[in-house]
């Protein structure tokens, strides 16, 4: 039926007449996603997962590369697969090892990336030597009960997301009551009449995922200014693939389930 997209779009626009319920719903789904991410990041036994060792390659540079080339070199190295961070060091500095000549310190995303990055560094004309170094990660200091609190927060956020979803969908159903009634008179059955609710749930899930990713990105960019997050921010890139792969489907699924609950009983006046 060609009119279905029109009817869904019309219903979604009308649902904006009660923005309060929708904003709360989006916030609750976003909170559930955020609580789930916190569980991914929080250390199981006092240190972040897979962060016991930090691996570095210290690339000594030829004595006089031009300044523009030095800037290009940093970007070039950062684009290599397995590189998490690039920093220039001068003689006398000691992070992560004592530096004897002008060098580029390359922090690897994991020790496994060493051989490939080392091979590519040695191909660069400006690099005259590469040295591998590793050290124990500082580890994030979090209270032992943090995971329990995060699990509790996730449960509360899930309950909130579903409850507010059910209420948000029921509110939308009241706003759409007359439209649903008219759609019924043109032969829309019980299944089709629930489509606007599912479309709304899907839209809320996508908005919540967008909001969640925006907040995580903001924390990644500026979170190091927050003392409680300093220890976690460097590990955000490790959960990016999981967040991107799971965030959208989980957010949409939460929205759909909440909307489905709200559409169990269609308004009487429809």
């Amino acid at each position: 039926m060609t009119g279905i997209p029109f009817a869904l779009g019309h219903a979604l626009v009308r649902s904006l007449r009660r923005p309060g319920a929708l904003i709360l719903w989006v916030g609750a789904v976003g909170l559930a996603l955020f609580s789930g991410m916190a569980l991914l990041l929080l250390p199981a036994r006092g240190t972040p997962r897979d962060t016991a060792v930090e691996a570095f390659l210290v690339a000594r540079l030829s004595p006089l590369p031009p300044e523009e080339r030095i800037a290009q070199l940093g970007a070039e190295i950062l684009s290599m697969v397995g590189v998490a961070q690039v920093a220039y060091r001068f003689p006398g500095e000691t992070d992560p090892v004592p530096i004897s000549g002008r060098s580029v310190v390359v922090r690897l995303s994991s020790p496994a990336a060493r051989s490939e990055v080392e091979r590519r560094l040695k191909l660069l004309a400006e690099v005259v030597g590469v040295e591998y170094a590793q050290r124990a990660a500082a580890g994030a200091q979090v209270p032992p009960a943090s995971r329990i609190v995060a699990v509790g927060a996730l449960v509360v956020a899930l309950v909130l997301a579903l409850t507010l979803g059910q209420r948000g969908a029921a509110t939308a159903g009241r706003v759409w009551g007359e439209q649903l009634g008219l759609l019924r008179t043109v032969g829309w059955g019980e299944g089709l009449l629930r489509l606007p609710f599912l479309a709304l749930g899907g839209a809320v899930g996508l908005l919540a995922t967008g909001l969640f990713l925006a907040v995580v990105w903001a924390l990644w960019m500026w979170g190091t200014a927050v003392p409680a997050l300093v220890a976690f921010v460097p590990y955000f890139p490790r959960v990016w693939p999981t967040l991107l792969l799971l965030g959208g489907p989980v957010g949409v699924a939460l929205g759909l389930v909440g909307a489905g609950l709200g559409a169990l009983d269609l308004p009487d006046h429809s």
Partner: protein
Amino acid sequence: MRVAIQVSEVRWATEDGVYVLDNVSFGLPHDGFVFVVGPPASGKTLLLRLILREEVPTGGQILVLGRNVARLSPRRCRELRKRMGYVPEPLRLLSDSTVTGNLSYKLRVLGYRGKEAEEHRARALELAGIASLAQERVGELGELERRKLGLALALCPEPAVLLCDDPFRELPPQDQDALVHILSAVNTSGMAVLATTRDPGLPARHGFGPKGPAPALRYVFSLRPGVVR
């Protein structure tokens, strides 16, 4: 005589065994106008819902435009519904929209737009006698005009059969008569009309007689309240 709707020995019972409709049979000719008359709870609305395939009969058969509605898939059923106008009771109107807005919404949902939609809209407004109210908001309409709008909605997009669920209810006699005149004009334009009412005096005022053994274009079919078996 071609038949738009054929209801044959239809029964419908509640879970408690109350037969709301028991062995109901009648036919609506392609260019006919039939009144279904019955007291409250005699199954008038149920009969329309069975014809629209919103309910399935316990027994018997209903043919609409030659198709057995009980055997239609949901998709075929929606296609058939495009050829059946329905005035529900209570009316389903978009109260914060204009008369034109209501018709446009229904036409867009059914996939009509542009010039084609405009033609259907103009024809329906003309037939329902509210062409001059096209830009009025629904909230500003009187009760008779609201009923006419419900009728105009049912007339979009040019159905072959019009089903009206007691559009005369709680209207003063002169407004009831006005609606019957409009329905007669719709019928004259080539559409089969089936209207229900709880007032047996209304069709009688307009010359409708009871259903007899011979086929007729205009007649009254009476329903009795349900029986417990």
